[in-house]
């Protein structure tokens, strides 16, 4: 005679279930009309931002000497904290040969859109207690931010041009720096036309602490906030070094080599970085997930007639359970007026419908105006 075996269903705490079966945990939550993060499906997380007060131009900065940070931002969203710092340098441009006193030929015709824009070089670091070569995620994030920034037209090449000042020493031995566009500049600064041109290059270091979901949107938003606080230092050349040449000779040949690094940055005078305000945009992401009818919790009889949707749109992906069980993602970078700068949809296992695209764009616009109000 065999003994009856009693099969008892296993039960897990929600946190345990989220780790061992993220799909199931997700589906169960959704059938309750909630997400594992206990947010509603179209609810975004709050974002807190502050000027990092790290930049050397910031009034509240602590370390002023030797500080080369030009703009900064700290962004907190849920558990994740992002610190963006903007640094920069000055490089010399290849200047076309001017024929007599003609205007220098335009390097690029107006039709070539992307080459009118300046760009920044972002480096994303996701801190997770390891050192070494950057991970694939860090590399793709950096490149995506770079692409998106370049084509957004947020920064024109013009805004990165250096208007060079001259440092001159008068008879008393007192040095002064004058810039051509300042009111009290003397004739010297106005008449001084350097034969070379310089431009600023900007680097953005984006550090991510306690990663909790996709990062592109948070990094992008933090970068935009940081650039809005960025101040570029004025740059000048010393009157005496403007035409410094060093003779070299080698194997019977000789030439005069010009000293390259004779441009200096002013430690006290700054100019705000000019951004094209109409192109300021903010990013938000969405997930599309299909509801698995078998994983739904049993419903009361009253609800039986209600035709529930087959898939839902979730705003602002957060947490392991959501990220692991979602393969269809929509990411939108848009300005408040609906002028989009970047759109990415990856259709994984769930189908992305036209309505969902429309809805996510609508929500992204709202989110963008909300985020813009914070800066």
């Amino acid at each position, binding site marked *: 005679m065999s003994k009856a075996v009693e099969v008892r269903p296993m039960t897990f705490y929600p946190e345990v279930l989220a780790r061992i079966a993220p799909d199931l945990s997700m589906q169960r939550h959704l059938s309750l009309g909630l997400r594992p993060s206990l947010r509603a499906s179209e609810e975004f997380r709050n974002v807190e931002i502050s000027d990092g007060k790290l930049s050397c131009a910031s009034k509240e900065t602590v370390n002023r000497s030797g500080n080369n940070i030009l703009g900064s931002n700290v962004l907190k969203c849920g558990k994740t904290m992002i610190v963006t710092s903007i640094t920069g340098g000055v490089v010399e441009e*290849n*200047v*076309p*040969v*001017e024929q007599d006193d003609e205007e220098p030929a335009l390097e690029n015709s107006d039709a070539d859109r992307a080459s009118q824009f300046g760009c920044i070089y972002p480096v994303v670091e996701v801190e997770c207690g390891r050192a070494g070569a950057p991970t694939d995620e860090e590399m793709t994030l950096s490149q995506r931010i770079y692409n998106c920034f370049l084509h957004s037209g947020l920064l024109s090449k013009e805004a990165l041009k250096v208007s060079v000042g001259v440092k001159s020493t008068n008879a008393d031995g007192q040095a002064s720096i004058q810039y051509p566009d300042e009111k009290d500049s003397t004739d010297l600064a106005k008449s001084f036309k350097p*034969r*070379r041109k310089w431009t600023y290059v900007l680097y953005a270091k984006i550090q991510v602490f306690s990663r909790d979901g996709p990062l592109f949107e948070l990094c992008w938003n933090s970068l935009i906030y940081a650039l809005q606080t960025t101040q570029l230092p004025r740059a000048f050349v010393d009157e005496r070094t403007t035409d410094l040449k060093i003779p*070299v000779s*080698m*194997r019977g*040949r000789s*030439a005069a*080599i*010009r000293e*390259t690094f004779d441009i200096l940055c002013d430690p006290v005078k700054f100019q705000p970085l000019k951004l094209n305000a109409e192109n300021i945009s903010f990013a938000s992401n969405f997930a599309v997930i299909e509801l698995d009818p078998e994983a739904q919790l049993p419903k009361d009889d009253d609800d039986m007639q209600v035709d529930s949707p087959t898939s839902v749109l979730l705003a602002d992906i957060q947490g392991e359970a959501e990220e692991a069980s979602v393969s269809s993602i929509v990411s939108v970078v848009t300005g408040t007026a609906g002028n989009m700068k970047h759109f990415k949809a990856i259709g994984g296992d769930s189908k992305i419908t036209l309505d969902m695209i429309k809805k996510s764009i609508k929500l992204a616009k709202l989110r963008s105006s909300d985020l813009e109000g914070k800066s």
Partner: protein
Amino acid sequence: MAKEIEISTSEAKFLIEALRQGLRSDSRKFEETRDVGIKFGKDYGDVTVTMGKTKVHCRISCNIAQPYEDRPFEGLFFISTETSPMAGPQFENGNNTGEDEVLCSRIIEKAVRRSGALDVEGLCIVAGSKCWAVRADVHFLNCDGGFIDVSCIAVMCGLLHFRKPDVTISGEQVTIHPVEEREPVPLGVLHVPICVTFSFFNPEDAEENIKGESNNEICLLDATLKEELLRDGTLTVTLNKNREVVQVSKAGGLPMDALTLMDCCHKAFKITETLTDQINEELKLDAESRNKYAALLSSENARVS
């Protein structure tokens, strides 16, 4: 993944036995090379070279850079020979530390760059501050032996085919003229080195390695992948049309008769001659196809010789 290709014992024995009887699996003679095919792309400096089934693509590009501080009058020249799993699963991506890969890139480096095949002084624009940096990217597409020989041909064809944009210098200001605006200028190629690889087999057992009277090693030209896997020793000589030996590489393996070296060089010179002629012929055909109206538009007067 990055696993060596294994050749079965029966196949290995068959191939060696065939060699002993004077036969090669692709019915070539011992001293017969495979035909080389050279195909130029649409852009300058884009060339695909095939030799049998081996296929290599080479792309030359250039940009403006700053010269090295200790060599202010010289431009920069880089050759990159990175393998990828495209040439076969035995190659690992991003890991070019394998013995064969290192040897291949070293020999190409020696044959082309260190032999001064490219006039780097001609790449100087403004001494000490601006020069051209030319790079040759060699992409291995299909591997059936002879990578060194084919890569060398590909790099040299690319360099001969490439045109860099014209520049105007006035003092320290430099204008780069786009290709549409001014006819681009060719690079200064001083000589065309050609690599020829010999493979040695020892059909007797290992004791015969210590050479005595019965020196019956087999010497093959232009080995295929299978022959490369089985060979006991290899020798790569690089020559140019001026009968100059540019580089000789014999990295271990089967010891060879010193006199064979001279013999190999003579054989290699014949190949060098035909290949150089072929390269020049292909370049001429390509130039003609690019410039169909040159004869028509020429303003040169007919001259009486």
